[in-house]
C-alpha cells in the first residue's frame, strides 16, 4: 500500500479532572485510549460511536487543536506532533475541520465575507482586497451560496446555509484532508442529505479526503469507503463499509447496526438492546472496555485482558476475543 495521507498510531488523550479547594488533579478522563488508523488520499473514513466516546477529541488531536497525551500522528509522513511555528502553520493549510454546531462555529460579529476571507488573509492567499473578494465569491458559489451573501452576518442564515459557510471557510485554504465532526447531526433530515451531497461533490472535484465523524451508522454508510467503530476511547472494528454492514464482527457493531432501520421491510433484523449505560470514561472497565455490556462476554477472559486488534478477513479488523 502506498503511503497513507494520514496515519494515526496509539493516540492517547487524558483530560485531568480537578477537584477540592486546591484544584489538584484528582482523576483523569480517558477520552482517547490508544486509537490508530490509516486514511488514504481521496478516501473517506467514517468514525462512529456513541456520544462521549472520544470521536471529537480524536479529531482535535489530529489537528493539534488539543495536544495529545501520547501517540503519533503522521500527515504525508511528517510527524504532526513534532511541528512548531511556521511548519505547524503550514500544515494547517492541509488539514481543516467542519464542526457540528452551525451556530457556534461562526463568529457572530463578523460578516460571511470576512469569516471566509480570514483564511486567505492568514495564509496570504490573496494579494489585494479585490482578489480576496473574488475568491470569497467563488467559494460561496462552490458551496451553493450567492456571492452577495458576503456582506451578511451569520445569524441571517439557516442552519444548513451556515454549515455551507463553514465548509467554504475550510475550503478556502485548499486542504487535502477535512475532518467533518458530525457536520449534519444538528440539521433537519431533509437538509442533511443536501449537505452530504455537497461534501461528496466537493470530494470529487478537489480530491479531498474525509475523516467523517458521526454518532450513528446510518449517516456514514452512504459517504464512507471504510468505517471505524469506536467505543470508550478505542476503535473496536474497522472494515470497508459494505463488509461492515453485511457482516459485522464486533458485538458492539452488531448492536449499533440493529438500531439502524433497514429499507427492506421483509428483512427483519433483531434489535439488540445493550444492558446498562456507557461506563464513565473516568474509570473505564478493565480488559475489554465493552465487557460490562457485551452479551457474549466471557468471565475470566474479557474482563482481564484487552483483546488485540486483528485482521479477520482482508481489510476487516476487529478487537474481540471471541470473534474474527
Amino acid at each position, binding site marked *: 500500500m502506498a503511503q497513507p495521507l494520514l496515519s494515526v498510531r496509539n493516540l492517547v488523550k487524558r483530560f485531568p479532572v480537578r477537584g477540592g479547594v486546591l484544584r489538584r488533579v484528582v482523576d483523569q478522563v480517558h477520552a482517547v485510549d490508544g486509537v490508530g488508523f490509516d486514511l488514504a488520499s481521496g478516501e473517506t473514513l467514517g468514525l462512529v460511536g456513541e456520544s462521549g466516546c472520544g470521536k471529537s477529541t480524536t479529531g*482535535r488531536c489530529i*489537528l493539534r*487543536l488539543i495536544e495529545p497525551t501520547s501517540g503519533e500522528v503522521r500527515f504525508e509522513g511528517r510527524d504532526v506532533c513534532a511541528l512548531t511555528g511556521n511548519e*505547524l*502553520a503550514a500544515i*494547517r*493549510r492541509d*488539514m*481543516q*475541520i467542519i*464542526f*457540528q*454546531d452551525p451556530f*457556534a*462555529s*461562526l*463568529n*457572530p*460579529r*463578523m*460578516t460571511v465575507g470576512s469569516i471566509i476571507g*480570514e*483564511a486567505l488573509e*492568514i*495564509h496570504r492567499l490573496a494579494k489585494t482586497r479585490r482578489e480576496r473578494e473574488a475568491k470569497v465569491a*467563488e467559494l460561496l*458559489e*462552490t*458551496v*451553493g*451560496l*450567492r456571492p452577495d*451573501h458576503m456582506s*451578511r*452576518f451569520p*445569524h*441571517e*442564515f*439557516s442552519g*444548513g*446555509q451556515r454549515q*455551507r459557510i*463553514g465548509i467554504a*471557510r475550510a475550503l478556502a*485554504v485548499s486542504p487535502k484532508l477535512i475532518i467533518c465532526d458530525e457536520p449534519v447531526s444538528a440539521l433537519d433530515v431533509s437538509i442533511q442529505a*443536501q449537505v452530504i*451531497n*455537497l461534501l461528496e*461533490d466537493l470530494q470529487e*472535484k478537489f480530491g479531498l479526503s474525509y475523516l467523517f465523524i458521526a454518532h450513528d451508522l446510518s449517516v456514514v454508510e452512504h459517504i464512507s469507503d471504510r468505517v471505524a467503530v469506536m467505543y470508550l476511547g478505542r476503535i473496536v472494528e474497522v472494515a470497508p463499509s459494505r463488509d461492515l454492514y453485511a457482516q459485522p464482527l464486533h458485538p458492539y457493531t452488531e448492536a449499533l447496526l440493529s438500531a439502524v432501520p433497514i429499507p427492506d421491510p421483509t428483512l427483519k433484523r433483531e434489535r439488540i438492546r445493550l444492558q446498562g449505560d456507557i461506563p464513565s470514561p473516568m474509570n473505564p472497565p478493565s480488559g475489554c472496555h465493552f465487557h460490562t455490556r457485551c452479551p457474549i462476554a466471557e468471565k475470566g477472559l474479557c474482563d482481564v485482558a484487552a483483546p488485540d486488534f486483528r485482521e479477520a478477513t482482508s481489510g476487516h479488523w476487529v478487537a474481540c476475543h471471541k470473534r474474527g
Partner: protein
Amino acid sequence: MAGSIPASATASTGAAAPRVGPWREAWRRFRKHRLAVVSLVILSVLVLAVLVGPFAWQVPIDEIDFTARLQGPSWAHPMGTDDLGQDILARVLYGGRISLAVGFAAMMVAIFVGVLVGAVAGMAGGRIDAGLMWLTDLFLSLPQLPLLLLIIYLFREGLTQVVGQELGVFILIVIIIGGFNWMQVARLVRAQFFSLREKEFVEAARALGASRLRLVVRHILPNALGPVIVAATIDIAAAIIAESTLSFLGLGFPPDVPTWGRLLFDAKDNLDFAPHWALFPGAMIFLTVLSINFIGDGLRDAFDPRRVIAS
C-alpha cells in the same frame, strides 16, 4: 461551477431575512427598553448642557455679589445664589463638565485596566491567571475610602507642582477612581474569555493558523465586549459619586473649581436657610447616575442574546 448543487434553492431563504448587523440588532433591542431610551435623552441633554451651556449662560462662575447672597431661584439666578452671591446655575454648568469628564475618564481607566487584566488572565490561565485573580480579589477587599484619602494626601502636592493644581487633581482623581473600579470588569472579561476560548468559531480560527493576537482581537474580544459596555456605564456612575464624595470631604478639587460634589460640600452648612444651593447640584448627580444606570440596564438587555423582549 457549483456542480449539482442547486444554488438558488438554498440561497433564497436568506434573502428574506432583514439585513441587520449585530450592532444594529442591539440598538433595536435597546430601543424597546423605554426607561433606557428616556435616560439616554436625559443624559444627552445633560452632556450638551454642560458643553454648550456656559456659552449660552454667560454669567461668570466667580462673580461675587454681596447684595444677592443666598437668594432662591429667580429669573436673574434660575438656581439661586450661594453665600458669596455667585450664580449657582453657572457653577453647576461649569462644574458638570468636570464631574462628567472625571466620570468618563475614570471609566476609561477602569475599562482599560480591567480588560487588560481580564484578557491576560483569561488567555494565559494557570499561574498567571491565579496571580491576577488574587490581585483582583485583593483590590476588592481593600477599604477604598481610607486608601483614596491616603493616596490623595500623599501625592496631591507633588503632582500639583508638576502639572498645575487643576490638572494635577484631575489626573490624580481619575487614576485613583479608575484604579479602584477595574475589578468587576476584569472578572467579567476573564469569564468571557474562558467560555469564548472554547467556542467552535475560535477553534476554527486556530485550525486556520490564526495567531494568538488575531484570536484575541478579531474573535474573542469583540464577543466579550457586550457585558463590558454594561459595566462601563456603572463605572461612570460610580466615578461621579466617588468624585463627589472626595469633593464633599474637601479632598477633591480646590474651592474655586465648582464640581457637583464640591458644590454640595460648600452648601452643607447652609441647608437650613438655602436648601436650593444643595438641591440643584444634588439633583444633577442624582439624574446623571440614575439615567446612566438605566442606560446600563437597557444595554444589558440589548447585548444579552438570550433575552428576547416581546416586540
